[in-house]
């Protein structure tokens, strides 16, 4: 059973291949993402994070989810040498760089706790798989070509059900042409895909490492349990030392 909804400004796909799946199960996963969006969206005036940013809630009165996100953000900030920071220069908080992967992780844990073992959750290209796909084979995940979004340029055989997240922006990919010379493409990172122990880990480190520019892939390379595939504007990919073990 599979369905896609637009939540948090991105397509979210839930696919459960276990037998005897009720439609209601998919619905509850989507409801969870809607709940997360309403709590953490910085574009909704009524969200808890916006109330915090307006000084309407005391730190002691944060919801449990909010407290957890703030703790995890602080942990990530330290682990990435302050590269990851939910506090913006104006003093307000924007936890969107960590909430997505964390929410996918929670939804995945929930499904497992309810006895589902074979499924895939995809929120805007950040993916957590479990078990096997509908053919009874390991889930396969393609990496999108940031220079041609219709194309897949790498296939990850996700037999160990790692979390896979990609950071990147189209914008970075397009202001890099030298207007004086069309052939002169300046070195920039277009996208960075990270394979991590789970989607929460993959997403937060993909976000932080992407912000490091060309150094990001070296940062991932040094992290135990993580692999990465970085694509620059020249269409050259650089991979961590263990990445190819996941493409066999």
């Amino acid at each position, binding site marked *: 059973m599979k369905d896609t909804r637009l939540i948090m400004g991105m397509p979210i796909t839930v696919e459960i291949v276990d037998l005897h799946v009720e439609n209601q199960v998919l619905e509850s996963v989507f409801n969870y993402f809607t709940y997360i969006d309403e709590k953490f969206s910085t574009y909704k005036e009524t969200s808890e994070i916006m109330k915090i940013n307006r000084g309407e809630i005391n730190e002691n009165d944060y919801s449990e989810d909010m407290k957890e996100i703030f703790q995890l953000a602080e942990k990530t900030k330290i682990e990435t040498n302050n590269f990851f920071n939910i506090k913006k220069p104006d003093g307000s908080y924007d936890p969107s760089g960590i909430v997505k992967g964390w929410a996918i992780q929670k939804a995945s844990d929930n499904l497992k706790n309810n006895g589902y073992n074979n499924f895939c959750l995809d929120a*805007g290209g950040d993916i957590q798989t479990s078990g096997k796909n509908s053919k009874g084979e390991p889930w396969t995940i393609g990496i999108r070509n*940031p220079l041609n979004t219709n194309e897949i340029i790498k296939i990850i055989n996700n037999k160990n059900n790692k979390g896979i997240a990609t950071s990147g922006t189209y914008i970075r990919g397009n202001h890099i042409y030298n207007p004086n010379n069309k052939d002169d493409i300046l070195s920039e990172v277009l996208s960075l895909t990270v394979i991590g122990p789970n989607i929460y880990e993959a997403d937060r480190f993909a976000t932080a490492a992407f912000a490091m520019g060309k150094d990001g892939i*070296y940062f991932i390379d040094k992290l135990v349990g993580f692999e990465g595939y970085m694509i620059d504007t020249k269409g*050259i990919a650089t991979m961590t030392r263990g990445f190819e073990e996941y493409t066999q």
Partner: protein
Amino acid sequence: MRKFLLSVFVISVFGIYALFAKSGNPSTVVFNTQTNSNTNNQLNNNDSNTLPITTPPSTAPTVTEAPVVKKVKKTTCSWKYYGGDDEENSRYVCTTTLVDTTPTSSKTTTTTPKPTSTPTTPKTVAVATPPPVVKPKSTSGWNDGTFTGNSIDAYYGYVQVSATISGGRLTNINFLDYPQDRSTSLMKSQMAMTILKSEAINAQSSNVDYVSGATYTSDAFNQSLSSALSKARV
């Protein structure tokens, strides 16, 4: 064992690199050196942002010292590249020449238009490298001018662009807003020289269950741009 083999590999590659470097042929080993050309790029883009297509810029000083006689004002504009690797050496230069009837007295003024960047337009994209094409009338179905697209939620922030049409062609896209939650400072000193494998990306079979990629921002970009372009339609 794997780590040991890796270390041996890394050390030997370094050795080979050293040898090549000595023999004056370092290009066979590619290091991922950090070249942060954002600033230059932006300067340059700003220049392209102010492309005067057919007329001299209004900031061009008028020449007053020119002698009395009949004079004809001629302006030519082009990209000038002053050499070197630095993009900043490129400028869009307009030369105004006053030619009078007596061939001996002509006066030339060269002006480089200053980028008129506003704080709300931090990024500029030059979509094409437009040679100054003079088209009297738009026959392309696009009105000349700058058109602002809708602001689209891209989850990590909003994306909003404006499109500039000149001579019936899309010549420029400005980012009025884009996701900026990520820090831009760099952590160069932390990074040791490890050599990582590189390859040219290559299209694969699309027979996969799911696809990982950052597409949400590009969707927002496309939406904003198409709404800008719809406003430019004749």
